[in-house]
């Protein structure tokens, strides 16, 4: 009986204590009709050896191509220490730290995480995580609607330069509360929102969402956008790549007063690509709005002897206390990912993260240089500053065929944008990280050149 320790003797003794003849008897309150479940189509159990063999084979089958795809999930080096420590049983197999005294490890770690995220985003406070970037944005939208006291609006300005999947997830989640996402178009020449073209009286909006860098890797005019939103009574929700923040201006410093909420996906901070999850969503905000923030928060306090300790706090916002009036229904979050990210950030520090960011960006520039001589390739937003990701326009060949050909060559060449942005024509989104060597860049250039000629 895998994972069940009972011996025959144990079972006998236990049934005797209970005073029933068989285990079956313990189910006698359940209507008989219901206990006939037929699950025979589920395979029989395998021992660990057979399971291992099966899973090794499946993983080997999935040997991965050289990755130049970003679009919200980024391949970065993860120090070996990160997951060796995060996978320790005491982190891996603990529950949410409800008994604070027995969970100081997790709690102190989350306090450190909150500190790192708040400083990285330039905000006052951070929660202990949300599910992922897309769902974090939906929570940010719900929070903005609650928090914006000067506006009663349920409308949100949502630029098309925000990750299409973030927008889709937000739409699926917030529409049930009759919140409307108003699409904001971008400048087709520069791939960013044209601040100058924004109306002077945009109507009543609860918030403006600002991505930085945006889905195209292009850098938005965050200062002007933030000030514009604040001028019109809207809050600002920053959607940011946390790694980029080692380099780029922190949301807390955008414009005159800073963004109000910063959120995004923590994946670039030590989380493997892993077909899309588990990652973790992060959310930071100003001190004044902490009571509107969803998710768990850890605070520092003292014990009976005056010694420092950590505990979950502000639980009155949460579903287990406030039930239908809670700021969100979130309960389980992405704790283990936060553990990994905290260790990752501690290992890299501000300078290490900055180097990763710069080196990624530099690698993209190196690749672009190699592609310059290729005919029929150009950058879609050539004059706009960008960060480690950019859009290429392809003249001769259909992007989907091109990528298909490169894949056969072992190169994952980027994302075909036509599905998401038909207005951009035949384009692909290209990303390079610090994991790529000069040889890798050469290989991409060669592979693309070959594919173009087919």
């Amino acid at each position, binding site marked *: 009986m895998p994972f069940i320790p009972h011996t025959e003797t144990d079972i006998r003794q236990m049934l005797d204590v209970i005073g029933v003849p068989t285990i079956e008897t313990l189910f006698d309150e359940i209507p008989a009709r219901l206990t006939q479940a037929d699950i025979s189509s589920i395979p029989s*159990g395998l021992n660990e050896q057979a399971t291992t063999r099966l899973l090794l084979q499946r993983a080997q089958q999935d040997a991965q191509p050289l*990755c130049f795809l970003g679009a919200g999930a980024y*391949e970065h080096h993860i120090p070996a220490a990160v997951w060796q420590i995060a996978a320790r049983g005491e982190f891996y197999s603990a529950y949410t730290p409800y008994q604070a005294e027995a969970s100081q*490890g997790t709690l102190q770690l989350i306090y450190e995480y909150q500190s790192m995220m708040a400083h990285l985003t330039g905000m006052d406070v951070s929660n202990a995580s949300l599910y992922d970037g897309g769902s974090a944005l939906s929570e940010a939208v*719900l929070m903005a609607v609650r928090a914006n006291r000067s506006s009663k609006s349920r409308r949100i300005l949502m630029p098309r330069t925000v990750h299409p999947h973030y927008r889709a997830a937000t739409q699926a989640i917030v529409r*049930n509360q009759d919140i409307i996402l108003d699409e904001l178009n971008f400048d087709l020449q520069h791939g960013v929102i044209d601040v100058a073209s924004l109306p002077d009286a945009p109507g009543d909006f609860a918030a403006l969402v600002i991505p930085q860098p945006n889905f195209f890797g292009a850098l938005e005019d965050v200062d002007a956008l933030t000030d514009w939103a604040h001028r019109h009574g809207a809050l600002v929700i920053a959607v940011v790549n946390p790694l980029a923040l080692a380099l780029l201006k*922190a949301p807390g410093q955008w414009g005159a007063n800073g963004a109000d909420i910063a959120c995004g996906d923590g994946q670039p901070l030590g989380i493997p690509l892993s077909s899309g999850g588990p990652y973790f969503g992060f959310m930071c905000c100003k001190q004044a709005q902490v009571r509107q923030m969803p998710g768990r928060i850890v605070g520092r306090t003292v014990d009976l002897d005056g010694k420092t300790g950590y505990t979950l706090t502000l639980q009155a916002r949460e*579903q287990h206390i406030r039930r239908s009036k809670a700021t969100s229904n979130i309960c389980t979050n992405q704790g*283990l990912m936060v553990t990994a990210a905290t260790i990752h950030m501690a290992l890299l520090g501000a300078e*290490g993260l900055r180097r990763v960011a710069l080196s990624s960006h530099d690698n993209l520039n190196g690749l672009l240089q190699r592609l310059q001589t290729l005919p029929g390739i150009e950058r879609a937003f050539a004059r706009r500053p960008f960060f480690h990701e950019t859009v290429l326009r392809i003249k001769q060949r259909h992007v989907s065929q091109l990528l298909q050909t490169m894949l056969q060559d072992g190169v994952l060449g980027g994302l075909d944008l036509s599905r998401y942005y038909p207005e951009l024509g035949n384009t692909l989104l290209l990303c390079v990280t610090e994991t790529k060597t000069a040889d890798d860049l050469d290989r991409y250039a060669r592979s693309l050149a070959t594919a173009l000629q087919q």
Partner: protein
Amino acid sequence: MTADTLIYQKSHHGRRATAQAPAAVVACDIPAQFLRSPPPLMPEASEMQVVRHYTRLSQKNFSIDTHFYPLGSCTMKYNPRACNSLAMQTGFLDRHPLAPEATGQGFLACMYELQQILKTVTGMKGVSLTPMAGAQGEFAGVAMIRAYHDARGDQARREILVPDAAHGTNPATAVMCGFSVREIPTDAHGDVDLAALKEAVGPQTAGIMLTNPSTIGVFERNITEIAAIVHQAGGLLYYDGANLNAILGKVRPGDMGFDVIHLNLHKTFSTPHGGGGPGAGPVGVSERLLPFLPIPVVDRNSDGRYRWLTEQDCPQTIGRLSTFAGNAGILLRAYIYARLLGREGMQRVAEFATLNANYLMARLREAGFEPAFPKRRATHEFIITLKKQARELNVTAMDFAKRLLDYGYHAPTTYFPLLVPECFLIEPTESEDKDTLDGFVAALVAIQREAEADSARVKGAPYTLPVRRLDDVRAARELDLIWKHDNA
């Protein structure tokens, strides 16, 4: 530097874990207006400092791998170590979520088979794996109920029924889906009050959210009647799968009449709790809700190749709940666990979880503790109430809980469900052995004696943990949520 020093306090300016970063890049073409300065306040530590710091922090946790952890409603069972190592293989970890399906046939095969297994074991017709925890599964489920009524043009159904014993996520979810919530009382034996239910249903009823076994640790005996009442009123039944461990492989929510269900794979399928997540909350639906399942879902082509179904394939879907496809790595772990158990193993989960709970309840009753529902069988969990102790000795459930920590046991869930005063919701799970359960009884008995002899001893607990009892009030009043340079 004591062990509770923050990593920030161990920092020194200019220190770095050098092996972990690429060489410095000098030139940067990003204009200054976009750049930050000064750098963020982050720790500056060596690799060994970081390893030592977090290794030592980990040792301050209770966990399944170190302690009995009978947290009711949380199913703290053993997390097989193979589920971790097999899911953490390079082939799986390195796969980009937007990479073509051709690069992920091994992974997708696992996901497809997991969908099939979950369908069968719950008795539902379709499954989407994408929700990232129980609460998001609830959201998906209730949003599908709404989409179903909306698709039929029935806009009047704007109320969700929830038993008063329900987990807080249930009412919170209903509100997130734009519903109002009506509570249904529980009767003296722990079942839903049928009369009250009959009175509550009507054309405004979108559905009811139930757990069965319920959060008070008993099986809802009238489930068939409840289903009839709600269905007749035009509502749908939602099953909160948090307690599925009690009946896994033996009783199927689909057979009880539920229209939609979520599972907590981080409970029933033993994926790690990770100190608070990540989880996975797949949803299963009956025939009529199939079109509304959240995307993506894995399909198998006639040529045996796997692919994602998206908006194009499922025009009525409630949409996408995560950026990519949910907590894939957690789903892999659940798949591995399901293969290790197999169908026989799943049934045994229900049987031995139930045996352990009933044994523990019987032993505690013998020892003088008071079950909240003494006439009922325990399911995989049960409640004892310490109201007598609180009244007579002024020793509360919280005091007992803290003192248990000194005895080397994690406390059960306390003060939930709210309708039982001074309660412990106790869930031993199938993976604990009899000696451990006996030891736990002995500890509670010992604490009872202490409470009788010297209640201050118990009220002052814990004594042997890294900290003594923490001041929660101060934590909430004098908010200290992040480290700053000028912190003590």
